[in-house]
């Protein structure tokens, strides 16, 4: 088949993003991620007319299910979790494209069956052999799955045929540097790096994408975006729920692996990166990678001055009594896994020299909130700011990632009257109330990106490994510490007193969200 046969009719439909006809195979198609996120995301994109005309979905998993059962499973997920209501008039057309193949991820024969099923679906739906494999499975199964795909001839090489095989891998990529390298080695042995999409759904959020637009689409921010004008940056990812049904996984992972290694470091790179010279995926990813290179390593002797970990104790959350971390079902007795971590981080490059980045994340906090706050330096202590006992509040630019996506700016203003009384006023911009329509969910955007072959919002191998190298130093220091004691914070509060000290010794304080 000739590559890139010219189709003049595609002009003007979409400049960059043109999802290609394909079959999406969801490994773990009967699981929670598929139910809550992937199938609703596909449905929404189909309803919005964003998917190609020729596509199909094939769930592959151990569960005993047939096509009809999978369609019922999808329908239930869409009715419960979809951004848009299920449209009964469109549902049969969408359901018609959903299929299920039962099989074990480690069974070679199951993959031969998968191949036959794919060929049958592709012939029926006019799909030219393009396949996307979404691994919604535990990390321990990735290696077997990838090897079986290769063995069964399900991985199309990048040979210019125009057909593609792409693989999407969910976080966490490993639980430490060694295991991340192991997973990456297996992926790269069987797929080309260009075919691998390591997903971090945070990067698909509208506000996260808006960070780049805000920084590089406006001329007023970038000149201030450096150590000369910025006092410090705070990144907070607060979760209100406890470990819940994820206790088994979470107790092996903890907040540092679960949140900091991926989501928070990705947010940090977007805030701190240098301006890219083009929208090319690799250029943007190179610039994010440079930030990781410049992250100052945390010296294990100094670790307690830079990193605070803690567990939630019993307390009250929204008026309801909740147990402490160690009393949660599925958590090991005497567990030292952190449910909260706060860090003080420096980026040793010209732009950010001396500017602390305070990062914190935790479970059982008072509310769900993710925010990046840029606090600018105070005006000099003269004139309006001459009263040292009542300094003016500094300007803060806050980017709200969730739940109320948007940004706000705090500025000082004069209260009306004969006297000069200055008051901080918050100017609030919200996507929801300004642009009305609900933004597409992160998974919607990311799935269409993979169909279109756009890797900008996905993590490259070097990014994953660089972040693990930095995190590993902290994990090693913690492993050396044989103490079974961890600071505790009451459930439903903003974290331990030790974390307050981390920032307050610098003369700053955590933002109240």
């Amino acid at each position, binding site marked *: 088949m000739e590559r890139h046969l010219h189709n*003049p*009719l595609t*002009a*003007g*439909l979409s400049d960059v993003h043109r999802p290609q006809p394909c079959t999406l195979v969801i490994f773990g198609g009967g699981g929670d991620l598929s139910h809550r996120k992937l199938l609703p995301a596909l449905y929404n994109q189909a309803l919005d007319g964003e998917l190609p005309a020729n596509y199909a979905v094939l769930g592959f998993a151990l569960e005993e299910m047939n096509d009809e059962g999978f369609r019922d499973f999808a329908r239930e997920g869409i009715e419960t979790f979809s951004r848009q209501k299920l449209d009964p008039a469109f549902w049969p*057309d969408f359901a018609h494209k959903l299929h299920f193949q039962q099989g074990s991820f480690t069974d070679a024969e199951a993959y031969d069956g998968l191949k036959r099923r794919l060929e049958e679906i592709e012939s029926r*739906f*006019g*799909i030219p052999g393009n396949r996307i494999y979404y691994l919604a499975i535990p990390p321990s199964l990735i290696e077997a799955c990838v090897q079986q795909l290769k063995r069964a001839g399900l991985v199309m090489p990048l040979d210019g045929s125009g057909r593609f095989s792409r693989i999407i891998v969910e976080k966490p990529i490993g639980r430490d540097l060694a295991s991340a390298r192991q997973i990456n080695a297996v992926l790269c042995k069987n797929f080309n790096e260009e075919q691998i999409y390591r997903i971090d759904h945070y990067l698909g959020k509208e506000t996260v994408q808006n960070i780049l637009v805000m920084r590089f689409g406006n001329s007023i921010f970038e000149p201030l975006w450096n150590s000369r004008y910025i006092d410090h940056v705070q990144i907070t990812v607060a979760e209100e729920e406890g470990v819940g049904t994820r206790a088994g996984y979470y107790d092996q992972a903890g907040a540092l692996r679960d949140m900091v290694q991926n989501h928070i470091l990705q947010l940090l790179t977007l805030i701190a990166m240098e301006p890219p010279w083009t929208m090319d995926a690799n250029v943007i990813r190179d610039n994010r990678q440079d930030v990781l290179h410049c992250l100052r390593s945390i010296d294990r002797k100094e670790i307690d001055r830079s990193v605070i970990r803690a567990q939630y104790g019993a307390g009250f959350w929204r008026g309801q009594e909740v147990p402490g971390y160690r009393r949660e079902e599925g958590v090991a007795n005497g567990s030292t896994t952190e449910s909260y971590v706060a860090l003080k981080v420096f980026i040793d490059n010209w732009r950010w020299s001396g500017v602390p980045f305070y990062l914190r994340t935790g479970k059982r906090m008072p509310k769900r909130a993710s925010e990046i706050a840029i606090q600018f330096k105070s005006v000099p202590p003269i004139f309006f700011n001459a009263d040292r006992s009542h300094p003016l509040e500094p300007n803060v630019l806050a980017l709200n990632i969730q739940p109320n996506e948007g940004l706000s700016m705090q500025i000082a203003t004069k209260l009306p009257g004969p006297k000069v009384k200055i008051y901080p006023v918050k100017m609030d911009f919200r996507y929801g109330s300004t*642009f009305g329509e609900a933004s597409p969910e992160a998974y919607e955007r990311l799935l269409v990106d993979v169909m279109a072959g756009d890797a900008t919002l996905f993590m490259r191998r070097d990014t994953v490994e660089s972040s693990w190298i930095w995190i590993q130093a902290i994990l090693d220091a913690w492993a050396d510490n044989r103490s079974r004691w961890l600071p505790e914070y009451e459930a439903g509060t903003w974290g331990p007193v030790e974390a307050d000290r981390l920032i307050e010794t610098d003369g700053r304080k955590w933002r109240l969200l």
Partner: protein
Amino acid sequence: MSAAKPVYHDIHCSSPVQVSLSDIEKELTGLWHSLNRDAAGSQTLTRACMSNLVVYCDLRSEADAVLQDLPKILEVHPARVLLLIGETERTNDDLKAYLSIYYSPVSDGWQLCAEQVTVYCRQNAARRLPSIPRALCVGDLPTTLWWVSSQPPPLAGEIFYSLADNADQIIFDSIGWKNPVKGVLAVTQWIAGNDSHVIYNLAWRRLKAWRKLISEALDPVVAPDALATVSRLEIEHGPHALPVAWLLVGWLAARLKWQPVEGRLLSQSAMTWHFECGKDPIDVLVKRRDEGDAWIDQLLWSWSGNAGGTVMFYQLGERKLGVSGKGAPVAETVVAIPESDRARLVAAQMAHRFHDELFEDVLEVSNRMAAILLK
């Protein structure tokens, strides 16, 4: 004011108050102030505004329909709205103005998303209307003129040109034009001589789902000869949708390099064009159904190469398009049409501030098709 019931989702609207045209800014300040009193804590009233939207209607009935659309538009594109209604028997006054504001909750306060000035006038005052947007549009913001009239814009005369002078973008809708051939000719000639405005026909935006499905179903990878050896097209459309079918044929001709050679009106409800692509002939038949909705009902695409084939594209109700093939390698499928009511189309278009070169190419071919038909 905050207790008012939302008019759409979270959007609230104050009751219109009659104002003197010379006092509008002062009255607006008063309305903002009363809204700001409801804000609590350190949250002040904020205002988001992306554009000026000047709407012109010939008739009260058109204005009533626009009033239904405005909250949906303003929800996604906050703007200052000047709704100008050029004909009414309601009043003896030449010009009568009403003022209202739209706002939505944010944090513990309110965000103002639009101000609406509605001006009614009798026809003999229409020449005074263009002076109103000149005085009332917010500076530094782009201005869109939404022309809501069954008259093609250039045929409306002075009032259209005066209002267009003040605008960066002009939006109109060719669906419902009484004489589409005359309208297409007038509009294409006007656009050909106009570089200063972004001009957009909502009928073109409605075609997007059709364009996407046709381009994907007939992609050379899927149906290798379907585009290159097309020989015949048959299009059926509902009442008032001839301009849409015309644009569809214009798009195909522009992209596939068909040259219009001949055109004939077969009856009140059918016309045909003969195109050439190189030396290959292509015949296009466009037929109107007597009843139905103002959209394209179906398109039959036949080609001759490699044993040939025929593919049928069809609209299935308001939100679905289908495709099926006879002896063709095209898979039968049904796709959703994204919601495309008029308010959404206008809001989406307001966010586009640049010329659509493809649309202008299509108009150029459409113009030649009209000229050949009238020859």
